[in-house]
């Protein structure tokens, strides 16, 4: 499988496949948690030291493009604590704009797995489509690339780092009330 970059040669195809399968399961479980607003489960899938990062994008001439940096504006640049802060708002009992709830749907695809730098870490890339439907007829779409570092902690995977690269320059909705 010369054109799979996903692993060292010390692993067999079957091992690689099992790994890929396992990561898919992990994402499917995560997706369900996010679709269902089951944030307790979601937090349990994030590492204590998770960096959850979604930089904003600008429309630039190719010559002016630069690597993303958290110094630039971010939609999210979160730790587990600040993520919990955001969810605390939702459960504060007075997040009026979240009741009735938003109908979310995450479509995760194109999962690519390779071994990470650190032992027990995986580098995973995926694409995601997030659909939001709200109230009578509001519809919003978010498409993005996700680049994760997953960590194996006692046989459980956790997101240690996630970078979400959105495909928009101007967010086409009144807010960003969803995680990707």
């Amino acid at each position, binding site marked *: 499988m010369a054109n799979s970059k996903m692993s060292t040669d010390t692993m067999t195809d079957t091992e690689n496949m099992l790994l890929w399968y396992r990561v898919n399961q992990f994402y499917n479980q995560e997706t369900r948690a996010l679709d269902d607003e089951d944030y307790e489960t979601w937090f349990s899938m994030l590492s204590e030291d998770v960096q959850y990062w979604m930089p904003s994008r600008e429309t*630039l001439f190719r010559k002016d493009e630069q690597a993303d940096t958290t110094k630039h504006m971010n939609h999210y640049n979160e730790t587990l604590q600040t993520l919990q802060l955001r969810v605390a708002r939702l459960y504060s009992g007075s997040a009026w*704009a979240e009741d009735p709830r938003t109908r979310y749907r995450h479509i995760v695809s194109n999962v690519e797995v390779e071994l990470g730098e650190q032992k027990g870490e995986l580098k995973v890339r995926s694409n995601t489509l997030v659909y939001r439907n709200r109230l009578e007829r509001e519809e919003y779409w978010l498409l993005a690339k996700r680049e994760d570092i997953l960590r194996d902690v006692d046989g459980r995977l956790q997101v240690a780092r996630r970078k979400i690269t959105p495909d928009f320059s101007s967010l086409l909705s009144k807010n960003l*009330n969803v995680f990707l």
Partner: protein
Amino acid sequence: MLKSRGFDEVEELKKMIDLKDGRIDRRIFWEDWIYQLELEKLFAKSWLFVAHESQVAKPGDFLTTYMGQDNVIVSRHKDGKVHVFTNSCTHRGNRICFADRGKTRQFNCNYHGWAFGTDGALMGMHEESHYEGSIDKSKWGLQNARVEIYKGLVFACFDNDAPGLEDFLGDYRWYLDIVLDQTEEGTEFIGGCIKNLYNANWKFGAENFIGDSLHVGWTHDSGTKAMTAGGAVPEYMPVDPNSFHANANGHGWEGGIDGIGTLGIMSKGHPELIEYFQSQRDDMAKRLGDLRARKIFGSVISATVFPNFSFLPGISTMRTWLPKGPRQFELRAWTVVNKNMPDNIRDIIQNACMTSFSPSGLFEMDDGENWENATLSNEGVITRKQGLHYGLRVGTSRRDDPELPGNISRPMYSDVNQLAFYQRWLDFLAADSWDDIPKQR
């Protein structure tokens, strides 16, 4: 646009704004013909914020933005001056520059290759020989707006009859200085821009920031609770009898004088931030005096420069509400800091600013649905005939103060600034030219 509506627009508009009792007609948030007048009689005549100087620091730096719905390029020319000109080719009208920002020597149009300088001048054309000198290039440059800069903030205006920017800002400069003039080095924008779209009338954003402290305790109760781990509306949101609304020329400022309200929010989890600001008070006071440096700065404050530029001192967000039709606007937001701030303070401020006032921010997240539905509800012909209530402490709270420029009312929970905003709005829409626009003190 041609007058063709078969009724007296100005008379109709005057009936829509009742300053005495504080009533506003819902149609100003809905009707197409009113929006068209806004573009032609307000946005095409007023000074408008277009950039911070730091965004175009060096010659060749540029960005693109909108004045009304006119896309413009803001660029620093080699003469060191900031130029603002329409971003549409004088040949056949194609847009010239498609980047949000960047650095360039010139702007080439994609269609036929006309080339314009960073001052908007027509420099040449692809295969120019075809023109056989028949074009006087000096007549075919991009249309420049007047540009004036107030302590780093770049404003532009397409009306030659408009007074200067200092006149336009008037007494309001005293308040702007609280953000812009804390230090010798002045301010800068960091981290670029966040843009998002609201299906709402642009004025809801502007009026919310000019004086709507009332909504904070309710709309943002969830964000506040989250910030304070479940506490009720926190102590740093007091109803201080000395808190005030100030307005001048339609620009408005509302806030407290406890000097600490906003710093409390911003420094949550970051004590070094509040320490830093306290350590700056003495120097600030040398420039701004005790009242502004010690009592006003740091309080919960929100402000709007007429018509569509708003900011939150302390929170450090500056933003403009770009109209996209009567029922849609785009918000563009930046973070402003003092140039002399250390990196760790900048990082804390930028993160706190994003966490509270970005589309995913704990506070901002809840505003949009209010504004969108306050707009959309007016689709109903029965609903649209109902007057709205802008009467909070109207006619009872005027408390002018020798220490505070502009029209002062107390406490800050009132609709006084909103009405001053709509009074100014009416001044523009009722006027045929700047001669007819009264000077509102």
